[in-house]
C-alpha cells in the first residue's frame, strides 16, 4: 500500500487526482499549499509526493528540496505547467523522480507513479541486500578471526617446537616450545633471525637446497639431530619440516622440533632393563641345567658308595659311569660357555672331515638305536684330507645330530620310522657342505625365530640354550654359513657350509 501526498493550490485538481489515485488503491493525503504540504509530509511520511510546481508561498521546488533533505528515499513527482520546462529540468536535478505536464493524463500519471514505485522498490531491495551483505561480511570476518585465533592458540600450545619462516628464511612463527628447545626468547628471533642463525647446519642445508631442486621439501620423515642451545648446551632432538608453497612458488617454510632427551633416557633405561632381564633368564636357565648335573653326580656317588661298601664291582661301575657322564656334561658346558664368550680364531689342522662326521655318528649311535632312530651316512668320497678346524666341525655336527635325535624323541607321531641322515658334499670353491636331516617333530615359527638369537631351549632341564648359539659362532668364526628349513610334524634339515684350505705342510 503506497501513501501519496498531493500538494496543489487548485482544489479541483487535488480532488480529481485524489479520487483517481484512491480508486487505484493508493492511500492519499492532501495539502493545498507548500507550507501545509510540508506539515502533512512530516506527519504522514508518504512514500510519494505529487506536488504542483507553481504555488504561492513555497514552490514545488522548495518542497522538493526540503523533502529530499529530510527524507531522500521519498520520491517526488513534479506537476508542471506549460512553459515550465526549465523548472522541470531543475527539479530533476534536485532529485525529482519525474514530472508530468498539465493537463494530467491518466497514462502519464500512472507511468510516473510506476517509475516512482520501482525506484522505491529497488532502493529498498538494495538496502536490504546491503544490510545483508554487511552481516555476511561481519560473520565471515568473525569466523576468520576465530579460526586465526584458534590456530594461534594451537601453535602456542603445541608440544612440538614450531618454527616457520617467510620466503626470505626470516623467522615469523616461533612458539613457546621452540623457545624452550632453542633457548632464545621470541624477541631475539621473530623477524630478526634467519634459519641459518638458529637451526643446526645440516637442517638449514636441507631447506636451502630444497628450493633449488624440483623435488620439494615436503613432509620429510623425522630426522634426528643435535641442537645447539643459546647457552651452549647441545641437546638431541627430532626434526621434520616442509617448504610452504603458494601458487607454485616458495612462500616460506615450517619446521617441527621434538626434544628427545627424555625419550633417549627412557630408551637407555629400556635397553638396560632388557639386557638385565635377559641375563637373569640366562643365569636361571644355566643354574637349572647345572642343578640337573649335580643330581646326576649325587646319585652316582651314592651308588659308588654302596658298591664300595658291598665290594660290588658292578655297582661301582654303574655309579662311576653316572659320575663320568656328568663330568662330561660339565666339561661340554664349560667349553660352550668359554667358546660363546670369547672371540676365537679357528685352529686349522690337517684332518679328514668324513672321519669326523663318522666319529660323531658313532658317539650317538647307541642312544639312537635304543630309541628306534636310524642314522644313515652319505659321505662324499671325493673329500679327502684337508686343512680346517676339526673342533669346529666336530662340535657343530655333534650339536646338530644330537638335536636331530631329540627332535625324533620329542616327536608325538609315534607311528613314524625315525631317520636321521648325515651327508657330506664337496662344493666348488673349496667348500664342504654338511647336511643333517631328520624326519622328527620339526619346528614351529616361534621356535625358528628364536633359534639363533637367545639362550633358548625347547628341551626343558636338559638344554642349556647354548647349543646352536655356539655352533653358529664357531661356524661364523670359521667364515662358514649355517641355514635350515623345517616343517612342523615333518622334520628339519640343517645345512652347514665350511671353507677349507688345501692340505698344508706344517
Amino acid at each position, binding site marked *: 500500500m503506497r501513501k501519496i501526498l498531493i500538494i496543489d493550490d487548485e482544489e479541483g485538481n487535488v480532488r480529481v487526482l485524489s479520487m483517481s489515485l484512491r480508486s487505484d488503491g493508493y492511500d492519499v493525503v492532501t495539502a493545498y499549499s507548500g507550507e501545509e504540504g510540508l506539515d502533512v509530509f512530516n506527519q504522514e511520511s508518504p512514500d510519494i509526493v505529487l506536488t504542483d510546481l507553481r504555488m504561492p508561498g513555497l514552490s514545488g521546488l522548495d518542497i522538493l528540496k526540503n523533502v529530499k533533505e529530510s527524507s531522500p528515499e521519498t520520491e517526488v513527482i513534479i506537476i508542471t505547467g506549460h512553459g515550465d520546462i526549465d523548472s522541470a529540468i531543475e527539479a530533476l536535478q534536485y532529485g525529482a523522480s519525474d514530472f508530468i505536464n498539465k493537463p494530467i493524463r491518466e497514462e502519464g500519471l500512472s507511468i510516473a507513479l510506476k517509475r516512482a514505485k520501482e525506484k522505491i522498490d529497488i532502493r529498498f531491495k538494495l538496502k536490504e541486500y546491503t544490510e545483508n551483505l554487511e552481516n555476511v561480511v561481519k560473520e565471515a570476518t568473525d569466523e576468520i578471526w576465530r579460526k586465526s585465533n584458534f590456530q594461534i592458540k594451537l601453535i602456542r600450545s603445541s608440544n612440538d617446537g614450531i618454527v616457520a619462516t617467510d620466503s626470505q628464511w626470516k623467522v615469523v612463527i616461533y612458539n613457546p616450545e621452540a623457545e624452550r628447545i632453542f633457548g632464545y626468547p621470541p624477541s631475539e628471533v621473530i623477524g630478526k633471525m634467519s634459519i641459518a642463525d638458529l637451526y643446526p647446519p645440516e637442517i638449514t642445508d636441507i631447506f636451502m637446497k630444497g628450493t633449488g631442486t624440483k623435488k620439494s621439501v615436503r613432509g620429510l620423515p623425522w630426522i634426528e639431530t643435535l641442537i645447539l642451545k643459546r647457552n651452549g648446551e647441545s641437546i638431541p632432538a627430532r626434526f621434520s619440516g616442509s617448504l610452504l608453497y603458494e601458487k607454485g612458488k616458495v612462500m616460506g617454510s615450517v619446521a617441527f622440533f621434538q626434544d628427545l632427551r627424555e625419550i633417549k633416557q627412557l630408551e637407555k633405561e629400556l635397553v638396560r632393563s632388557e639386557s638385565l632381564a635377559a641375563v637373569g633368564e640366562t643365569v636361571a636357565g644355566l643354574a637349572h641345567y647345572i642343578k640337573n648335573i649335580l643330581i646326576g653326580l649325587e646319585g652316582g656317588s651314592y651308588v659308588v658308595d654302596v658298591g664300595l661298601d658291598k665290594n660290588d664291582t658292578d655297582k661301582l661301575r*654303574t*655309579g662311576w659311569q653316572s659320575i663320568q657322564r656328568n663330568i662330561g656334561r660339565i666339561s661340554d658346558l664349560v667349553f660352550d660357555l668359554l667358546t660363546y664368550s670369547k672371540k676365537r680364531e679357528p685352529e686349522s689342522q690337517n684332518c679328514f672331515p668324513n672321519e669326523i662326521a663318522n666319529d660323531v655318528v658313532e658317539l650317538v649311535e647307541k642312544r639312537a638305536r*635304543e630309541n628306534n632312530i636310524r642314522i644313515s651316512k652319505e659321505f662324499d668320497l671325493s673329500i679327502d684330507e684337508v686343512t680346517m678346524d676339526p673342533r669346529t666341525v666336530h662340535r657343530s655336527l655333534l650339536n646338530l645330530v644330537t638335536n636331530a635325535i631329540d627332535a625324533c624323541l620329542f616327536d608325538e607321531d609315534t607311528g613314524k620310522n625315525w631317520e636321521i641322515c648325515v651327508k657330506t658334499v664337496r662344493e666348488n670353491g673349496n667348500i664342504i657342505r654338511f647336511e643333517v636331516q631328520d624326519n622328527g617333530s620339526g619346528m614351529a615359527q616361534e621356535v625358528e625365530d628364536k633359534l639363533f638369537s637367545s639362550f633358548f631351549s625347547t628341551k626343558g632341564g636338559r638344554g642349556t640354550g647354548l647349543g646352536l648359539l655356539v655352533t653358529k659362532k664357531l661356524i661364523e668364526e670359521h667364515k662358514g654359513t649355517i641355514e635350515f628349513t623345517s616343517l612342523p610334524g615333518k622334520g628339519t634339515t640343517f645345512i652347514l657350509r665350511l671353507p677349507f684350505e688345501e692340505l698344508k705342510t706344517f
Partner: protein
Amino acid sequence: MGKKVLAVDDDPDVRSFVLTVLEENGYTPLVAQNGEEGMNAIKEEAPDLVILDILMPRGSGVRLYRELKTDASLKHIPVIVLSGIAEKSFLRSQKALTEFRGGDVPEPEAYLEKPVKPGELAETIKKVIG
C-alpha cells in the same frame, strides 16, 4: 622276596640311583625308560609301587600317571612321583588336564622333588608300602 617296585625314568643316572636305593632297602627293583615301557612292565609284573618321573619326552610320564589313576584295574597301585618340577606346578598342570578332559585325578601317594637323598627316598617308600 621283597615288595616289587617299578622305577620309571628316562635318565639312566636316576634309574641306577633309584635301583640301588631299592636294593639296599630290601625291595625287588624293576626299571623302565619311558611311559610305554612302564605300562608294559606294570601289566606283566604287577608291582606293589610305581616311582614315576613326570617330565619325560612326549608327555609319556603324564600319560602314564593319569592312566594309573583312572584305570579301574590299576587304581590300587600306589604312585610316588619323583620329579624335577615343583609339586605346585605338577598339581597345577594336573588341574588343567582335568578341566580339559573332565574327571578328577587323585593326587599321588607321595611327591618328591629331585634331588632326593637316598634316606629320604627309602623313608617315603616305607611310609607308602611298608
